[in-house]
């Protein structure tokens, strides 16, 4: 290994460690913020009590605010941010397209359509989780339709995937518009769901997103070297021993399922999956072994910051998708212009 690439490896490791530590600190700070401010020491005490299964060292009210109200929401936001950013990284790497994000293959339109249908018809066959189930079903059906249209030759070429994703999304968007038109006064509920929110998330939401997110992350990391090589294009990747068709199928399914679960729990939160991978590529480079964890932590930090602002700082809850763009956008512009100016032309 050349001296420079060894330094880059050490640097990437350090950045990932810093991101992880920042995320941990941010979780504690965010838990302390809100209608009832709680000191960091007390939060750690409550966590310790929660883990031990005993509750004696702190105020029971604070204990229940932390464990029952704030932590589930905060950690769900963290998992969704992590999942969306990892999925975005995988999609950009697979589709070789800088504009790809977790929703390029129509996962979001499918989820939106499913959720809107549930809201329009007032479906409740799974109780309170019906909305979530319908969104997930919409997302996965869309995914399989897109893969079915583009994958007949077993190769799943990026151009075919993007094209079929765009077409299926367009059809579903038209369907969604029609549902909104039919929904009359219920249209506000649909619109608000579409913009995404973490209000009153539970431990179950957390278990679902964190479980799927971590399992998916492990699969993506397993194929990280293949993903690096697939950036050379199909012909070269095949000649270097990567089974491109199979690897693409596995990674697409994994990344799409992560996105589908995130969307079904939180609604459609754009921007995280698009911008964070780019941002982290500027910082840690294109090597997916580093890029995937760095993006995950970066996405978690962005989404937690946005959710904490809307929950504890702003006077009213603002749709979180709006905030992610408002916070992430300027940071991205700053780093983007700095990288550009640092480069020679020609």
């Amino acid at each position, binding site marked *: *290994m*050349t001296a*420079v*690439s060894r330094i880059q490896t050490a640097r990437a490791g350090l950045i990932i460690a810093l991101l992880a530590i920042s995320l941990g600190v941010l979780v504690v700070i965010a838990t302390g913020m809100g209608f009832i401010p709680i000191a960091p020491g007390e939060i750690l005490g409550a966590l310790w009590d929660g883990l031990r299964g005993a509750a004696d060292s702190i105020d029971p009210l604070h204990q229940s605010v932390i464990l029952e109200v704030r932590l589930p929401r905060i950690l769900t936001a963290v998992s969704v941010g992590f999942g969306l950013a990892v999925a975005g990284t995988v999609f950009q*790497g697979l589709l*070789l397209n800088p504009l790809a994000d977790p929703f390029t293959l129509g996962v979001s339109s499918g989820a939106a359509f499913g959720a809107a249908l549930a809201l329009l018809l007032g479906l409740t066959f799974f109780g309170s989780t019906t909305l979530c189930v319908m969104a997930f079903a919409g997302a996965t059906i869309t995914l399989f339709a897109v893969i079915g249209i583009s994958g007949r030759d077993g190769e799943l070429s990026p151009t075919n995937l993007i094209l079929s994703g765009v077409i299926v999304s367009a059809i579903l968007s038209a369907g969604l518009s029609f549902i909104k038109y039919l929904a009359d006064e219920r249209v506000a509920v649909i619109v608000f769901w579409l913009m995404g929110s973490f209000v009153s998330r539970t431990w179950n939401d957390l278990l679902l997103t964190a479980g799927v997110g971590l399992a998916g992350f492990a699969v993506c990391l*397993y194929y990280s*070297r293949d993903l*690096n*090589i697939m*950036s*050379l*294009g199909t*012909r*070269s990747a*095949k*000649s*270097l*021993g*990567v*089974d491109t068709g199979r690897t693409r199928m596995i990674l697409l399914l994994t990344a799409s399922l992560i996105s589908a679960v995130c969307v079904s729990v939180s609604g459609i939160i754009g921007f995280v999956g698009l911008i964070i991978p780019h941002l982290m*590529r500027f910082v840690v*480079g*294109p*090597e997916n072994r580093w890029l995937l964890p760095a993006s995950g932590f970066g996405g978690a930090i962005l989404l937690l910051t946005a959710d904490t602002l809307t929950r504890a700082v702003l006077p009213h809850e603002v749709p979180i998708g709006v905030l992610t763009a408002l916070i992430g956008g300027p940071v991205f512009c700053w780093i983007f212009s700095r990288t550009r100016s640092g480069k020679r032309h020609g």
Partner: protein
Amino acid sequence: MDSVIYDIKKVCFGYGNTRILHDLDLTFEPGMLHAIVGPNGSGKSTLLDLMSGHLMPTSGSMKISGTPVSDHSSPRLARLIALVPQEFDFNFPFSVFDAVLMGRHPHIPRFSHPSDKDMSLVDTAMKKTDTAHLADRILAELSGGEKQRTVFARALAQNTPALLLDEPTASMDIRHTLVAMTELKRLARKENRTVITVLHDLNLAAEFCDRIIMLNKGRIHAQGTVAETLTTDTIRDVFGVHADFIDTPNGLHISYGIKELP
């Protein structure tokens, strides 16, 4: 290292109703530098795609050391054949070093780091292609010839018994072209590898290659030694130009001209 023999029997290939290759019968043996020449659209790159397993023949058999190419798994094939494609894209800001190291991918087990042997092969490949000083540069920022040398280095690092190259020197300068061709000849002659390269420059083929396969409209027009294949007649029939053979201090030189311009 095992040596590799290509055995191609009655291979046809086409897209839909367009036939590109017709009933090819060919054998490629180790220890020789083979050149595939022919005009645009004669099926040269398609033949390489079939040999690398990227495309499947419509009919006929394409065997490598006795086993059909399609029966090998991708990693196994990548340990037998290295490919230098005509076109290559680099989509993310990987460095030249990263790209050459990717040539070792089929040899490095999934959860392992590159071994000392991998590193020394990468090192040698970069020295041979004069890319060592570019190691930390971003691929996308290199010139066309430098990119081509990087891809060439990657194929050398892959260290396979067979090498397939499609116009490997098309963007290289004169010196790097001669260095690359000399290296290909050395790999074939000294290391007993099976080296097959598509070339447009007949002079380069004549100077370095042991065997020439001349394709025309998807069929073999001539094959054999340089003297047997590169003649005034074959060049006129296949390329539609007039060729003169001139003795020079650097060997035989072919000079072309179009006699009757339209």
